[in-house]
C-alpha cells in the first residue's frame, strides 16, 4: 500500500521533471540560470528536511556541510587542477566526514543545544576560511579555474536531473522503514530505543545521507558559479534561506523543499521592481506563510482533504 503511493508520487514527480526539462525551449537563459540555482538550493533544503523532519535534529548549520564540500572541491581544483569529477567526489567525501563530526554532539545533546552546536560549526568554518586566506581566498572568495559548462541549457539540465535523482532517493528513503524509524526516534528517541531500534545507528545514517547530498550539491554549485565565497555558501543567512525553503514547502515532505526553494527565488525575481525592498518583501511573505500556513505549501494542498 505504502509502496504503491511512494511509487505513484515518484512517477508524478518524474512527469514534472520531464516537463521542466523542456523549459529551455520556452524561457530565456536568465530564467534558466535562476532555476539552476533554485534546484541546487532545493537539494540543500531536501537534505536539511531529512535531518530535521525525520531525524528531528534542529540543524542551523546546513551550510557547514555545504561549505565543507564546496571549499574542498574548489581548493583541490585550484591547487592541483584535478578533473572536476574528482574534485566533486572529494568534496562530497569531505562533507560526509563533516556530517559525522556534526553527528557526534547530536548523540549527546538535543534541541536548542544541538542547534547551537551546529551554529558554532558554521562560525568556526567561517573563521577558518577567513584566517587561512592563502588557501581559501578568505573574505575575497575562491575563484576556480574550471566550470561545468558555460551553456545555460546544459547547466540547467545538470541541476534539474541532479535534483530529480537526489529528490527521488531522499524521498524513497523517507518513505522506507528507515525513514519511519528515524521519525519515531526524532519524536521520542527513548521510546524508539525501547522498541528495539538502534537509534544511534539510524541517526548517524541520516547525518551521512544529508551530508552526502549537501556536499555534492555544494561542490557542483562551485563549478556552476566558478567561485565559492562565504556570502554565497556558508553565511548563516544562506542557512536561513535553506531552512525557510524547507519550512515553506512543508516539513517532512522532502519534495516540498524544492517547491520552497523555487518559490523563494521566483519571488525575489517577481519582486525585483520593488528594488531595495524586494528582499524585505520576500522575507515578509515567508513570515506570513509560516504564521498562517504552518504546514507549508504541501500542507496547504492537503488541507481541504483533511477537512473532508
Amino acid at each position: 500500500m505504502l509502496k504503491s503511493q511512494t511509487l505513484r508520487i515518484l512517477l508524478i514527480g518524474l512527469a514534472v521533471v520531464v516537463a521542466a526539462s523542456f523549459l529551455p525551449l520556452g524561457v530565456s537563459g536568465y530564467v534558466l540560470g535562476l532555476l539552476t540555482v533554485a534546484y541546487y538550493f532545493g537539494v540543500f533544503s531536501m537534505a536539511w528536511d531529512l535531518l530535521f523532519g525525520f531525524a528531528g535534529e534542529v540543524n542551523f548549520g546546513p551550510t557547514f556541510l555545504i561549505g565543507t564540500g564546496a571549499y574542498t572541491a574548489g581548493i583541490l581544483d585550484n591547487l592541483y587542477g584535478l578533473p572536476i569529477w574528482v574534485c566533486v567526489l572529494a568534496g562530497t567525501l569531505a562533507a560526509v566526514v563533516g556530517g559525522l563530526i556534526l553527528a557526534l554532539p547530536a548523540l549527546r545533546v538535543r534541541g536548542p543545544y544541538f542547534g547551537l552546536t551546529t551554529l558554532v560549526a558554521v562560525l568556526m568554518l567561517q573563521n577558518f576560511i577567513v584566517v587561512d586566506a592563502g588557501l581559501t581566498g578568505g573574505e575575497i572568495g575562491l575563484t576556480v579555474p574550471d566550470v561545468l559548462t558555460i551553456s545555460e541549457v546544459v547547466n540547467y539540465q545538470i541541476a534539474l536531473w541532479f535534483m530529480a535523482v537526489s529528490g527521488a532517493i531522499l524521498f524513497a528513503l523517507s518513505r522506507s522503514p528507515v525513514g519511519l524509524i528515524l521519525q519515531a526516534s526524532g519524536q521520542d528517541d527513548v521510546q524508539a530505543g525501547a522498541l528495539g531500534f538502534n537509534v544511534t545507528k539510524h541517526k548517524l545514517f541520516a547525518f551521512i545521507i544529508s551530508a552526502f547530498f549537501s556536499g555534492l550539491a555544494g561542490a557542483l554549485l562551485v563549478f556552476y558559479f566558478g567561485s565559492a565565497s562565504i556570502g554565497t555558501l556558508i553565511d548563516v543567512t544562506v542557512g536561513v534561506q535553506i531552512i525557510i525553503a524547507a519550512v515553506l514547502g512543508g516539513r517532512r515532505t522532502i519534495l516540498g523543499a524544492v517547491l520552497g526553494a523555487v518559490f523563494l527565488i521566483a519571488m525575489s525575481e517577481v519582486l525585483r521592481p520593488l528594488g531595495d525592498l524586494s528582499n524585505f518583501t520576500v522575507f515578509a511573505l515567508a513570515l506570513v506563510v509560516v504564521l498562517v500556513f504552518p504546514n507549508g505549501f504541501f500542507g496547504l494542498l492537503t488541507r481541504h482533504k483533511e477537512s473532508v
Partner: protein
Amino acid sequence: MKTQLWRVAPKFATYAAAAIFALAMASPGHAQSGPIKIGVIAEAQAVAGSSIPQAAQLAADEINASGGVNGQKIEIVSYDNHSSAAESVRAFQRAANEDHVNAVIASYISEVVLALEPWTGRLKTVMVTPGAASDVITQNIAKDYDHLKYTFHGYLTSTSIADLVCAAAKDLLATQLHLKSTVVMSEDAAWTTPLDAEYLKCLPEAGLKVLDHIRLSPDTTDFTPIFNKIEGQKPDVILTGISHVGVQPTVQWKQQEVPIPMFGISSQATNSSFWNDTNGAVEGVLYQAVSGPDVAVTPKTLPFVNAFKTKFGNFPSYAGYTAYDEVYYIADAIKRAGSTDPDKLVTAMEQTDWIGTIGRIQFKGKDTGNPHALKVGPDTITGLMLQWQNGKQVNLWPEKLANGKMKFPSFIKVGSAQ
C-alpha cells in the same frame, strides 16, 4: 495526512508549473536594436555603491541631451547586488544574456569584481569597475589576456594608491611635520594585500620608518586593543588602509583620545555623510581620495559635482566620480570603434585618452604586469590628500590644489618636532 499526499501530487505539479510560468513571465523581453545599453551592478545600500548608478545615469542623461553616440541613445540598466558576489554573478548573467548590455560598470568591492572577472571572458562582455582596488584583477588579465581582456580597472590599483599616499606622506608628514615613524593599520581584505606590500616598501623611501604592521579583521567592532597596541609602539602617525570598516575605528580613536594622527586610506571618510555618521569624530583625519568637494582636479570635476548635488541632493562617493567618467569613455570608445562588438570595443577602450573628473584616463598596456589598470603620475592621476575640518573636507595636497592648512584636534600630539 501523509497517506493522502499522493492524491495532491498532481495538484503540486500544477503549482510547480504555475510558479515556473510566473518566473518566466517575470523576465521582460528585450529589444535587439535600439539604444546602447550599459549595465550597472552596484551596492545600492552602501554609501560608496549607491552613487554608482546615480552618477552613471547622470552621465548618460548628459550624453543623450547632446545627441547620444553615433545617433544612438545610452540607456543605463541598474542591478542591486546586495554586496553579494553570487547576486552579482546572477546580475551579470542577466545583463549579458537577457538585457544584452554592451558594457557593464560593476561594484566597488574587489571580491565582487574578482568573481565577475571570469564571466566577462565567458560571456564576452566588457566590464569596468569604478571602485575596486585589488591588483589581482589586472594581474589576472596579464596571466590570461585572451580570456580576460574584457575587464578594465577604472579605479586605481592598491599599489598605485599606496604610491600616491607615500608621495603625499613625504610632503606632508616627513617634510612639513618632520615625522619619522609609523605603524601601518589595514583591514584584512583582498585589496590591502598589495597595498600593505607597497606601503612597507615606499614609506621608508618617503622617510617614515615602519615600526609595525597590523592587519585587522573586517569584522572587528572593538578597536581598543588595536589602538592600545599601536600607542605602545609610539609611532608618530598611523597609516591606514581601511574601507569596509570606517565609522567604528574613527569613533573609537576619538573616544579614547588616541594621541596619534591617522593618515592614509579611509574610503568611508570620502563620503560627505561621514561627519554625521561619526558624530564629528572624524575631525582631523587625513585621507587619500581622487577627488573632493570644491577641488577642481580637472575642468570637469566641479560641474559634475554640482550637477550631481542638484539632481540627487548629496555629494557623490569616490566611485561616483569614476562611474561618471566610465560612461563617458565607454561611449567614446564605442564612437571610435564605430561598433559595439566586444572585441572591437576592447581595442578602442585600450586606446582611451580621456580627461575625466579625477584626471586623465589612460590604461596600461598589454605587456605591463597590470594591463588595463589606470596609469598614475603627474601627467595622468595624482590623487588628493584631504582632511576633515569642522564638518568639511579640506584638500591639503598636492599643493597647487590645496584649499586649506593641516590642523589637528587638541588630543593629538603631533610629533616631537612641534
